[in-house]
């Protein structure tokens, strides 16, 4: 079967009533999480993992993926109506979206964001179908040495682009890798850093850690701020005018390309594509002075790039097993919790699952469009929920998520501890992305390296005999070396990502 036939079969499965319901529920919950200021897609996906404990693997992954891209759209609503991005990628949308809302054009801004997100997400998923199989087939030729090189390369790209201080990003990576070392040694089974706690033999649970770092950490940060006021917008008139359609069409096309291409590169955070698409649109405009004062192209380009990125970022995960951002790392954790290891073998061993999940992206994008245009007024009303109730609700989910996986209150303490750590790291502007990616890639990296060295009887010279592994290991050397020698070359991207 070729990719198209697989996709058609997947579409049939994704359209089954059960899977449709999971996609619908995921889109609703994701949008809801995305529009709660302070909670991004990573936190949202982590917090809602307990809802999927009793589902079959396909349903669970469909729902979590829908939560992810639902949250990416949900952030737009707060950006437009209260000038507070629901998640980092919506920062750029605040600029023109909020200006449009103040001019009484909030409905148009939200509608064009929903349409742009749909177009960007759908085209990016089509491109994913084309790219994923050749990439997975290439990865099937990889041995442990190549996988080690691939994971080091992916991690180093994240380190290189995360935050403003390279040394701090490296240190956070070491922290993540050290946390991944806790538990039984993956090859010999010897306990490491367990200090007599049997609860630590399985390692530090990924779910409590991400719930703490993202869910509790972001909540504590939001608790510190005073609540923002919402603009009373007329959301009954959401259909954009003919001029607005004309202005947005090109921006949506260009935003799709920018979002998809940047989504394929590990380490490019979700804000970078929106920033790049916005800057590109402003530079191409004959009237750049309108940007910042309610230019609908600004909203269209950023939101399209945002959703195209979200779908493209699934390519490295599904085809190579390498997460390219913290949210994708959370999704990878959810795959693993459900007994699925993302990567090239997924396409040969579980084709029915992977193609149903990919097909569900089309379904999810369509549901988001149908859901968001008529329901925008309802979402706006939800923004009026006081922070205290939102906070209590999120914490209930966090406790259930941390406890529910292993029925262990020890994991609730782990979550609380990592919540405080996540809050402090954010306050100090230390990057979390490298730590979380290192935590999930750590055991796989160690296993690949040790298997490689066992093959070579402990000699590192084996990497010299494997050109692909050597080439992959050269990527971090080049990237990190270039960054140390020419730090200004990456400054705009890192600055955008850090902000």
């Amino acid at each position, binding site marked *: 079967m070729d990719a198209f036939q697989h996709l058609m079969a997947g579409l049939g499965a994704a359209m089954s009533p059960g899977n449709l319901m999971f996609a619908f529920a995921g889109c609703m919950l994701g949008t809801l999480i995305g529009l709660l200021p302070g909670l991004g897609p990573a936190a949202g996906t982590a917090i809602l993992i*307990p*809802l999927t*404990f*009793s589902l079959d693997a396909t349903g669970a992954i469909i729902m979590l993926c829908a939560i992810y891209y639902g949250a990416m759209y949900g952030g737009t609503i707060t950006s437009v109506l209260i000038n507070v991005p629901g998640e980092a990628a919506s920062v750029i949308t605040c600029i023109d979206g909020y200006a449009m809302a103040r001019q009484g054009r909030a409905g148009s801004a939200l509608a064009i964001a929903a349409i742009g997100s749909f177009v960007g997400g759908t085209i990016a998923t089509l491109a994913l179908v084309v790219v994923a199989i050749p990439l997975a087939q290439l990865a099937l030729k990889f041995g442990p040495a190549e996988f080690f090189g691939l994971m080091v390369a992916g991690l180093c790209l994240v380190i290189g682009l995360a935050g*403003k*201080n390279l*040394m*701090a990003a*490296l*240190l956070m990576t*070491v*922290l993540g*890798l*050290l946390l991944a*070392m806790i538990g039984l*040694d993956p*090859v*010999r089974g*010897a306990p*490491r*850093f367990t200090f007599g706690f049997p609860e630590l033999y399985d390692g530090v649970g990924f779910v409590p850690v991400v719930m703490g770092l993202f869910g*509790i950490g972001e*909540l*504590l940060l939001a*608790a*510190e*701020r*005073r609540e923002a006021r919402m603009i009373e917008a007329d959301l009954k008139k959401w259909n954009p005018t003919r001029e607005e359609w004309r202005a947005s069409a090109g921006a949506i096309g260009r935003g799709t390309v920018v979002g998809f291409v940047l989504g394929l590169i590990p380490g490019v955070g979700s804000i970078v594509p929106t920033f790049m698409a916005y800057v590109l649109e402003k530079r191409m405009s004959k009237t750049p002075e309108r940007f910042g004062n309610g230019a609908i192209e600004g909203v269209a380009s950023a939101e399209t790039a945002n959703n195209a990125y979200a779908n493209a970022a699934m390519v490295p995960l599904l085809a190579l097993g390498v997460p390219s951002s913290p949210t994708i790392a959370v999704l990878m954790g959810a795959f693993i919790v459900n007994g699925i290891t993302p990567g090239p073998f997924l396409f040969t061993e579980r084709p029915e699952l992977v193609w149903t999940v990919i097909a569900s992206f089309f379904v999810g994008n369509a549901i988001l469009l149908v859901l968001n245009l008529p329901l925008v007024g309802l979402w706006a009303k939800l923004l009026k929920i006081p922070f*205290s*109730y939102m*906070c*209590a*609700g999120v*914490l*209930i989910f966090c*406790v*259930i998520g941390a*406890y*529910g996986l292993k*029925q262990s*209150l020890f994991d*609730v*303490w782990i979550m*609380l501890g990592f*919540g405080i750590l996540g*809050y*402090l*790291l954010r*306050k*100090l*502007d*230390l990057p979390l992305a490298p730590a979380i990616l290192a935590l999930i890639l750590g055991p796989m990296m*160690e296993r690949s*390296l*040790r298997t490689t*060295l*066992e093959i*070579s*009887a*402990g000699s590192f010279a084996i990497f010299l005999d494997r050109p692909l592994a050597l080439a992959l290991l050269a990527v971090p050397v080049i990237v990190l070396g270039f960054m140390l020698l020419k730090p200004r070359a990456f400054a705009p991207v890192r600055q955008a990502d850090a902000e």
Partner: protein
Amino acid sequence: MPSGARQGWLIATGIMLALCLFAVWQSSLLPLTDKLGPGPGFFPFWLSLIGAAFSVALLISVWRAPADPPDTEPILPRGYGARRIGAIIGTLAVTTLLMEVLGFQLAMLGFNIVLLVALGERRWITIGLFAVAGSFGVYYVFTRWLDVLLPAGLLGL
């Protein structure tokens, strides 16, 4: 390093250095190599050694950075923010302590009421409804519909 965060970064880097050195010591107690090649201590030993080197490098660069301006806003919150953060951490910690004894439902009922009041809510009927839904209601949904086991406590609630 963000402006005004020098002291915070010095403390964080110092803690990371101590953590890495501790990990070097702990992993040196495990076999670094064995008959098949690298042993259980191999990866964490070299990793923590590299981490210690990064920590020293970062510590030196932060040490050389200009001191924080006197009017710098403190990293840790004060007043309004500190009270709210303290309420969240405190109620969550006490609830976790009590959950084994009281069970999920009673512990969460108390958690919801105390947290909402601590965060400034005063509409008692809404608080009560939310607290019941967020404890007994959530317990029912997760245990009956979603098959998630939650602590029942000594009273079996």
